[in-house]
């Protein structure tokens, strides 16, 4: 694989994680972004590293892989150099754990059932007695019905986390080129061999589309439309407070909102403190294209739900609010793998609001697939040729070809040549 030129399109956290894994594996990696690194979705989210909001299935598997990899990755970044140590520290890794609180009987039943299925998949999910909950979160509402503690949930400062992964990728030899906007693809013999950018042509053997909510539009520029759309989320930030919220605390509605496909507003409370003392309040989900206006009624609904969990925050001033666009796929699963329609094009996107947490697992999986290593988890559910991603099911034959290619890659760990790739 040495000498294979990989071009990662997008320098957000997914691009950074993919670039890091591939550069560490010895590939020649270039990262392109039309703006600055981590300036888009990555720096407009909360930094969730959650297992608690996912039911058993492929996304939970990816979340659990990522949860295992996060501390390992940050430790490795820190060990690399003094700059790496500073970068890893700026990621503000906090394995604080999450607590999901139900405030109604219906919510309690749903939460209890959900936690039980998660336990069968290996997630630590401990039901808390009321007294234990109040000990863990003294300011939480007394009106709770059931609370479940997820000790594996964690948090990072997302821009810092992305910078840490990117710092490591650069240390491993990757090149970052910002202000490079991809305009179109260059294909030769049905294979993507380069991209025209606003700053010239960049050639490569393999291209990874990690452009987040813009990856659908980017894929279209390369001639391979992709069903990834922006879904907006907003976050409120309070003035710094004395310690008030100790875990990532959210209401039991959150899981429903994550899994919903409604275009209309979905809100549920996610409340947590940052290292600086501010409380972050999420979350909302709206499919409004790239409309960047904050809506007062959305902020109002979020504030109302947060106060249901923490009534004592009513007098706390909100200092700012920000919104971001997350890459939404109709079937709520990330898109990770080779595009069967255009050889040389890969995608790593569609993580919606979970991309920060899932980034390191995604990077690892991309590396496994590209190198043909035994994958650490089944990647089939994330494949590109799904109805939700391509609109219609593609020819089964092409799908078989992709699987064959993968098996082929797993058998061969030698040089990736033009010939092999074309013959796959």
């Amino acid at each position: 694989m040495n000498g294979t030129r990989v071009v990662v399109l997008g320098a957000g956290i997914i691009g950074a994680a993919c670039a890091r894994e591939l550069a560490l594996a010895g590939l020649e990696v270039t990262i392109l972004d039309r703006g600055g690194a981590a300036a888009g979705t990555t720096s407009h989210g909360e930094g969730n590293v959650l297992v608690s909001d996912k039911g058993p299935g492929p996304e939970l598997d990816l979340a659990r892989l990522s949860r295992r990899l996060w501390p390992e990755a940050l430790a490795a970044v820190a060990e690399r150099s003094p700059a790496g140590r500073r970068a890893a520290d700026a990621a503000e890794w906090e394995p604080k754990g999450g607590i999901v609180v139900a405030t109604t009987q219906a919510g309690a039943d749903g939460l209890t059932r959900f936690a039980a299925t998660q336990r069968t998949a290996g997630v630590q999910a401990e039901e808390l007695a009321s007294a234990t909950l109040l000990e863990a979160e003294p300011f939480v509402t007394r009106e709770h019905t059931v609370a479940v503690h997820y000790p594996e949930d964690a948090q990072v400062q997302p821009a810092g986390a992305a910078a840490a992964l990117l710092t490591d990728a650069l240390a491993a030899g990757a090149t970052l080129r910002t202000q490079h906007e991809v305009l179109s693809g260059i294909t030769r013999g049905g294979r993507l061999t380069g991209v025209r950018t606003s700053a010239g042509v960049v050639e490569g053997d393999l291209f990874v589309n990690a452009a987040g909510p813009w990856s659908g539009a980017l894929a279209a520029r390369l001639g391979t439309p992709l069903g990834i759309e922006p879904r907006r989320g907003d976050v409120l930030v309070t003035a710094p407070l004395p310690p008030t919220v100790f875990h990532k605390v959210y209401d039991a509605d959150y899981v429903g909102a994550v899994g919903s496909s409604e275009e209309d507003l979905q809100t549920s409370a996610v409340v947590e403190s940052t290292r600086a003392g501010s409380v972050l309040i999420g979350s909302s989900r709206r499919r409004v294209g790239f409309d960047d206006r904050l809506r007062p009624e959305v902020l109002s609904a979020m504030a109302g739900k947060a106060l249901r969990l923490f009534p004592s925050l009513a007098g706390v001033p909100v200092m700012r609010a920000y919104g971001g666009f997350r890459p939404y796929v109709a079937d709520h699963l990330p898109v990770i793998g080779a595009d069967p329609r255009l050889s040389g094009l890969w995608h790593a996107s569609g993580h919606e609001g979970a991309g920060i947490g899932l980034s390191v697992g995604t990077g690892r999986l991309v590396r496994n697939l590209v190198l043909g290593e035994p994958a650490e988890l089944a990647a089939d559910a994330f494949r590109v040729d799904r109805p939700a991603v391509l609109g219609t099911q593609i020819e089964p034959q092409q799908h078989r070809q992709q699987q064959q290619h993968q098996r082929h890659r797993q058998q061969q760990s030698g040089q990736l040549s033009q010939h092999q790739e074309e013959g796959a």
Partner: protein
Amino acid sequence: MSPKRSEQARRHVAVIGAGPAGLSAAYAALAAGACVTLVDSAEQPGGQYHRMLPEAYAARRPERLQHGWRAFDRRRHQVLEHPRCTWLPETSVWMLERPDPEQARERGGPPRVHLVSGPADGTGRTRCTLDADALVLAVGAHDRVLPFSGWELPGVFTAGAAQALAKGERVAVGDRVVVAGSGPFLLPVAASLLEAGSRVLAVLEANTPVTVARGWTRRPWELAAQPGKTAELAEYTVALSRHRVPYRMGRAVVEARGEGRVEEVVTARLRADWSVVPGTEHTVAVDAVCVSHGFSPQLELPVAAGCALGRRQASPSEISGHPGASSPAPSPTNEFVLVDDGQRTSVAGVFAAGEITGIAGAPAARAEGAVAGWTAAGGAPSARALRTLLRSRDQGRAFAERLARAHPVGEAWPGWLRPETVVCRCEETDYGSLCAALTDRAGADPRVVKLNTRAGLGPCQGRICGPTVAELTGRFGGPQRQVRDSTGRPVEGLAQAAPHRRPIAQPVRLGELAASPMPLEDHPPRQSHP
């Protein structure tokens, strides 16, 4: 204006800010027949310029403290007591809600104004919304202060804060005070301090006599056309000389020192570019220091409304002018709201007046406000009074241009900074960390720098350090620019890294936010007939 005209047909003009510009806008809009809602976060109108003492301990002779008091007082009564005016004191605009593009085409109005009303530290504030036919933004400016070692110490004040304490609460910030920075504002601040009983040891203007003289005397006829302003400055100069306060040019406070609070300042002579002349440092024992390096326009509401910003266009005579006095390069630190001849911004139904369109002082703000109010109310563009106002406004703009030339910020000021000098006082981000972040390839994007260094994330939301960080960012990473696609349009969904972007313009409590807002009446006159 026919008195028979029905209230329903009257235009409703919302004026945000009741300083010289806003009050004047309200007056002109009322004169043009509109209903006016005048909003200000203070208890009393007047803004920073005519800062009033709370009723409880109002000065018996405010005219002694304040320039142009009588005219202001008359105007204040004319506006607040007008039957078509609704005065909303202690009310903040926390958000401007831009309508959907389709909705905007239908309704054609300016953004909806979201307000919180009630004492800022009280608990009973209420939320309401205001939909007007036109919106006049007259929200003014605040001090711009460059960082220097020790500026975070207690006892270091922005000149504006010191003046507010002196004018608004009759409190002297110290017994031995140095006033330093740049611009004519240093003079009234020093005068207020003297009035409040402080001993002002010196007023230090950072620009050299050559720079200042070149800026002020290039076209003396323009200065003569601002007689009020010239007389005002002359008065302050007399006050300073009466108290034997030395006014030194080409000198700055480059460091403040002290245990727990400021005890002494280091001053130094500066070259024209504000680099320190080595060996000219002096230490002066003080118990307070007031600094101001000009003003930053409060642009969060114009930005929230979607108004285009830019550098005010120089007139042709300006461009062919003195080669030695080049205009400062455009940067995020000298951006203002762009307006046309009628004070219209780029957003339909939104007008701007006063310091947000260029720092020019109260007389220019009053003229701009009047033009804005008149136009916003749909007043006839041919009105004779308007011609006088426009002339006065243009004189004010020429004055602003002159002010900017006479008191530029020299570009070598970061030479004062040390790695450990605090740049963001709220979050205690130092210069060294900021430089490291700006030069880190993996995290040099302005938003990422902000999140990773926390500069600008504190309670003031970058109002103080924002211009400094933006300027340093520009120096390290080239000019900040909007990411554009191949057709030249801004990329959808990628917000511009703008130092003035604060969608929540004022803090709002979670409880207030959770409550549903009350819409204010469309036509809120207190009496049914004019």
